[in-house]
């Protein structure tokens, strides 16, 4: 139905096709934003529950409308721009963060065929766009022309670059096993049940036969490392050094108020959801059901959202129960533990694929 509609419009004129795409993107952005409002609430509720508090519970039933109340409050406050700041870049920084966070979603497949742009180099695209997210933080920190934001920006830049390297290598192992950089293809190679997911490769009759079981510990460990790197990449606790409130107040966001601050926070949560989606796609089989028998009546998008929500819950739990890392420990973990381990995994997995794999 939708395909024929797109065909119809693109036959009509390129401008109409452009309009249709634009409407699609607008709808996607709107849905994602509303979902995110509830995810932020979930984050706060989980955090509160771990600390035996109630969390937000005043606005709307169970506090469900808290995020919307916050939105109104943020938007109606005055935007304060420090007089010593670089005004253009100061405003540009939060916009970059938000736009980059939304851009990456263009290639994320949510269900069979439900993807804005099914490009061949989808993984690379996500990596490239998420590596641009660091600009919002550096520019924001520098344009504020103030000490704390600058320190926060420097920390954040070093941190994000360090963990991007290991994330790249981890994703490389998944690409080797799938034989494709297309996200839809990566999800489809994990069909059939949870024992085919990259995180739990315990299928003795799979592509590589019984020897394929040897991949299970490696890929499981890669999954864990990807999760930890994702925490560091999105500046979430326990790696929230750029905004460590005990040392840097709010890090690169110190001078930001009102709507620009809202954009920063929104972009950050959006990046988190993107990482949840990427984890789901790369390691948890995307939209495929854990067991393939008797659940065909459930739409695939349900599984995708369920897995994303689970990953988001993990993010929230980590924030609630793990104390913050010290900065040198963070760097040590990134360069001296994750980088060699993921490099070794790349060598092992690629050897595996070359000598035992028939299809790849």
């Amino acid at each position: 139905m939708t395909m024929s509609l797109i065909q119809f419009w693109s036959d009509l004129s390129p401008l109409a096709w452009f309009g249709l795409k634009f409407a699609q993107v607008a709808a996607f952005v709107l849905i994602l934003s509303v979902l995110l409002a509830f995810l932020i609430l979930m984050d706060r509720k989980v955090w509160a529950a771990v600390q035996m508090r109630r969390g937000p519970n005043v606005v709307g039933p169970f506090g469900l409308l808290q995020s919307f109340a916050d939105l109104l409050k943020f938007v109606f406050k005055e935007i304060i721009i420090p007089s010593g700041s670089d005004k253009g870049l100061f405003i540009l920084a939060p916009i970059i963060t938000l736009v980059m966070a939304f851009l990456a979603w263009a290639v994320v497949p949510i269900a069979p065929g439900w993807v804005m742009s099914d490009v061949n180099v989808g993984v690379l695209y996500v990596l490239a766009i998420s590596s641009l997210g660091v600009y919002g933080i550096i520019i924001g920190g520098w344009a504020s022309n103030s000490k704390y934001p600058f320190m926060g920006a420097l920390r954040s830049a070093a941190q994000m670059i360090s963990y991007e390297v290991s994330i790249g290598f981890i994703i490389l192992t998944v690409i080797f096993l799938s034989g494709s950089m297309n996200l839809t293809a990566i999800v489809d190679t994990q069909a059939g049940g949870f024992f085919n997911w990259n995180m739990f490769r315990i299928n003795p009759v799979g592509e590589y036969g019984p020897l394929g079981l040897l991949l299970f510990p490696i890929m499981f460990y890669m999954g864990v490392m990807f999760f930890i790197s994702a925490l560091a990449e999105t500046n979430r606790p326990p790696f929230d050094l750029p905004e460590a409130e005990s040392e840097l107040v709010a890090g690169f966001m110190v001078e930001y108020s009102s709507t620009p601050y809202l954009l920063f926070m929104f972009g950050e949560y959006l990046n988190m959801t993107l990482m949840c989606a990427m984890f789901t796609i790369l390691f948890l089989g995307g939209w495929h059901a854990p067991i393939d028998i008797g659940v065909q009546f459930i739409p695939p998008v349900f599984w995708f959202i369920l897995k994303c929500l689970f990953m988001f819950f993990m993010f929230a739990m980590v924030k609630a129960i793990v104390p913050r890392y010290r900065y040198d420990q963070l760097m040590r973990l990134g360069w001296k533990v994750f980088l060699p381990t993921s490099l070794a995994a790349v060598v092992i997995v690629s050897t595996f694929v070359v000598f035992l794999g028939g299809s790849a």
Partner: protein
Amino acid sequence: MLTVISFYLLAFVAVAAAFMVVAARNPVHSVMYLILTFFSAAGLFILMGAEFLALLLVMVYVGAVAVLFLFVVMMLDVDFVEMKQGFLSYLPIGALVAIVLLLEMLMVGAAYVAGETKTVVVRETGVSNLEAFGQVLYTDYAGIFEAAGFVLLVAMIGAIVLTLRDRDGVRKQDATAQMARTKETGMEMVDIEPGQGIG
């Protein structure tokens, strides 16, 4: 039609941003324009159908190299007045480099028009960008590719050797030693006599 418009738009932005890299007063702004140039170049690559190369350009140059540029430029305390004073004395060298570059570009262009250039032959058509790259890079050009890798390795080791100094009297952390501490090695029980303190 859309492709042509996009090409001219991207090309214009690329050239204008490249000009602003030189013209901008603030070095941080210069780096920003440089990033814009890289980005527009990536857009041009995509228009040519080289999506892999485009994303690699964004990832490596915009995502890593330009971040380091920005890092260095932000940390430096640049004095603008001093920079402007040196402008005239550096002008002859700058002009020389510019003229040589222009001549080289003209010669390449002339050779291309004369049809004397050698193009890389792609073995198979209908394969994705990435596979086409792999087929050429790891067969015909494997030696050069590995040599380039070695050059980078040497540069990296050189940078580390130049900056790594073993200084005395610096307290360093040893993570293994910290982890290996037990209750017995990390704690000492002392019986303190009243009024004595710990010697």
